């Protein structure tokens, strides 16, 4: 007899484990591919996965097989012209060898084909930010936290009807019914057995039979009186609200847009911001981004204007720092928000302004910050701003500065800034 079984509802991801194994094994290759991709990736495109290309030879599963050469006899179908003794010119190499190894040989050959496949966005981000962690990621004290979330908390005997847990309720009801009717059932069985015996023996003792029948009837009624379900059987799913740590972050992007910053420099800065944004989005559910650009004056702008409008003039960095501080104080209180900032500049600053920047940062800004990173994008020698910041970074753990020369530096610098060791060192 055959059985038909509908397996369609069974999980279809039986191979998910093996896929993970594959990615794990080829991590080095895939990571390289991911790192290469970040430089080519378009800025707005953060929601897709990535096409990964791996040279096929790294994936080979070798086995002993026969090579080219030697003497082979093959039978082919569809002869349309040959006679015995015909000599055929040897087809270009490879063709004869191909069908000799059951077609599997291609896998172990030196085929330079590339094996490409797609990884999902999550896998992409995991690989991209592997070994990185957010510095200074202390949980905020829960007293400061205003967010709550509802979580399951076992079962309770009181609750709303829509939260009734049917399985548990019926389980309790069954237990109660067994407990309340068990002894009576046992008695009933004894009586019934006795009755059957008497009937089977055709006993003349009719009075006992009648008595037994009455008792049995009485017991059955009593058993039937035990209710199927009772109030105290009911079990309800219990929910409590729990304070949860704040999962919102604000990211300040500060950029110098004075005449000395050209478009390529801005693009480099932009990539850095994107990486930071992607990275933060792994840890926080909600991220707000504030763009502040400045020359001699600072202004809060939208993304388009931030990256693509051209300005001229000198540079006063402290203006941006002041603006950032006031925005942060008024809109993003540090108790509720995780505050991050990234500043990009070519290092120019009005010399008299630098001490002011130092003072602003160390006294009012940094105490409210999770992390402040400064990248200087320039090919020239460092100027006063770098020196001042450098001093600052030595005594402020949440402040970091790095120097970027060209696009290819961005990702390594980023990794360096956020690597686990870096966090430990601090």
């Amino acid at each position, binding site marked *: 007899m*055959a*059985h*038909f*079984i*509908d*397996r*369609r509802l*069974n999980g*279809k*991801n*039986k*191979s998910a*484990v*093996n*896929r*993970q*194994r*594959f990615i*794990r*094994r*080829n991590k080095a290759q895939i990571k390289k591919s991911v790192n290469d991709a970040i430089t080519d990736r378009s800025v707005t495109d953060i929601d897709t996965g990535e096409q990964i290309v791996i040279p096929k030879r790294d994936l080979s*599963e*070798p*086995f*002993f*097989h*026969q*090579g*080219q*050469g*030697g*003497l*082979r*006899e*093959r*039978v*082919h*179908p*569809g*002869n*349309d012209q*040959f*006679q*015995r*003794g*015909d*000599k*055929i*010119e*040897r087809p270009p190499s490879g063709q*004869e060898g191909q069908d*000799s*190894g*059951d*077609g599997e*040989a291609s896998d*172990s050959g*030196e085929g330079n084909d590339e*094996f490409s*496949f797609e990884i999902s966005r999550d896998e992409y981000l995991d690989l991209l930010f592997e070994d990185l962690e957010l510095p200074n990621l202390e949980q905020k004290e829960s007293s400061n936290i205003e967010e709550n979330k509802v979580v399951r908390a076992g079962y309770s005997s009181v609750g709303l009807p829509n939260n009734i847990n049917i399985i548990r309720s019926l389980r309790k009801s069954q237990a109660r019914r067994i407990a309340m009717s068990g002894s009576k059932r046992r008695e009933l069985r004894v009586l019934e057995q006795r009755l059957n015996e008497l009937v089977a023996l055709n006993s003349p003792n009719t009075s006992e039979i009648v008595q037994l029948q009455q008792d049995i009837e009485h017991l059955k009624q009593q058993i039937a009186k035990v209710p199927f379900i009772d109030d105290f059987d009911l079990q309800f799913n219990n929910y409590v609200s729990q304070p949860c740590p704040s999962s919102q972050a604000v990211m300040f992007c500060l950029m110098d847009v004075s005449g000395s910053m050209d478009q390529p420099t801005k693009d480099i800065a932009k990539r850095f911001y994107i990486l930071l944004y992607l990275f933060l989005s792994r840890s926080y559910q909600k991220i707000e981004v504030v763009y502040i650009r400045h020359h001699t004056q600072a202004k809060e702008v939208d993304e388009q204007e931030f990256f693509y409008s051209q300005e001229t003039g000198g540079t006063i960095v402290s203006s941006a720092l002041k603006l950032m501080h006031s925005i942060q104080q008024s809109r993003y209180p540090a108790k509720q928000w995780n505050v991050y900032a990234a500043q990009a500049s070519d290092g120019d600053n009005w010399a008299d302004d630098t001490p002011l920047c130092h003072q602003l940062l160390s006294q009012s800004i940094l105490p409210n910050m999770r992390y402040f990173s400064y990248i200087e994008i320039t090919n020239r020698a460092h100027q006063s701003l770098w020196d001042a910041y450098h001093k600052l970074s030595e005594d402020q753990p949440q402040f970091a500065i790095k120097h970027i020369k060209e696009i290819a530096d961005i990702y390594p610098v980023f990794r360096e800034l956020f690597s686990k060791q870096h966090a430990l060192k601090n």
Partner: protein
Amino acid sequence: MNQPNRLDEGSDWTFAKLESYHEKIKQVAQGYKLDTYPNQIEIITSEQMMDAYSSVGMPIGYSHWSYGKKFIQTQQGYHRGQMGLAYEIVINSNPCIAYLMEENSMTMQALVIAHACYGHNSFFKNNYLFTTWTDADSIIDYLVFAKKFISDCEEKHGIEAVESLIDSCHALMNLGVDRYKRPSKISMHDELLRQQEREDYLQSQVNDLWRTVPKTAQDDTLIKARFPTEPQENLLYFIEKNAPLLQPWQREVIRITRKISQYFYPQKQTQVMNEGWATFWHYTILNTLYDDGFVGDKFMLEFLHHHTNVVHQPAYNSPHYSGINPYALGFSMFIDIRRICEEPTEEDHHWFPEIAGSDWLETLHFACKNFKDESFISQYLSPHLMRQMKLFSVTDDSELNYILVDSIHNETGYRTIRENLAKQYNLSNLEPNVQVYDVQVDGDRSMTLRYYPHQSIPLGDSTEQMLKHLYRLWGFEVKLEQCEENGDIETLATCPKRS
């Protein structure tokens, strides 16, 4: 014209329809004396089919990256439309598990049921290779055990260690099978008895006088006994039993891969027969259904369309040609055997005196039971079929700069073609013959393997990687030599590399 016993011909399938078709197919199959395991037919989606594909048809497989790679390849091929999925997968187990895809039409499902659940199934149950080498009752349990064992090992010893071990085992899987039946194990009791007998015998030979005879100096020139005394073809078995440094769990993992390889070995040897047999039966069974009026023209046309696709054999010069299609060859041969039995010609009487005119069903069952591809072809390939397929045989000798047509489908060529075609399916000609030749038991424990070339075909270029895998398993130096027919020995490679 509506016949009362006609089955519902709508192209969508339902479970009720599957049942009724299956019932009819089963009746017909039993009429043809097809002896099968009970069937377990499972309906799956295309995603699940891809899962089944990537685990090489095992319903339960241990985790390994190579299956992930296979899965990614299959998935991409399928999503880009480069390849279709098979309509069915069938597993040699008891009960026999067959997967049907939900996308199939009713006709396809009927074809697949006849093909897999009665064709392949009866072949699994009756062919001598399967009955000797595989154990359909326990394979599922064994796979469950294997999966559990390997995941336990991963927990204990780390994924890395297990994975690299399995890599090496997979590489050697083809050389991890026994090709000849070994004597069945005698029981512990018998073993003790024998040992006792040997001891008694030795004891009876003891004579104290011998001790007084002075010993001569030992003859050093005596040829040292080799270990193993005979070359061993089952590399995995040899390593499992003899590798000095392996942990017990590693030996067990080797054993698991070896067992799985052995389980699939008969399938490799009977591809033409197995597919031919299943194709012959779906063709015969569905035609019988049609003749008996259970299905109509519409059903038959769709069926024949699929059937002809399956048994299509492109000619050697067609761009679609990629060797001989096992479905086409096997199917034609079984049809041809039936023809020889039912309508033998003069030629058939001459070539097949034993089966010409005999009962076709009995002859077919006999063929199914007692042959593998190689012997099946050399026994039953008829001149009629060679003419029909226009077979010709070519010799490709790398010493010469041309390829020679040595036989075509004519009176002088029939025997050579048949012989050559049979050889083409002889696994021992296709897979390189590498054997364990010697192990330095007293010395550095290095292992020497020998490759015996078939018709001077050299080993492929994977040799060095393979030696690394062997080295990983063996733990000591591994050397590969090539042994020519004239006895010349040439060292191909060693691992670790000698400077």
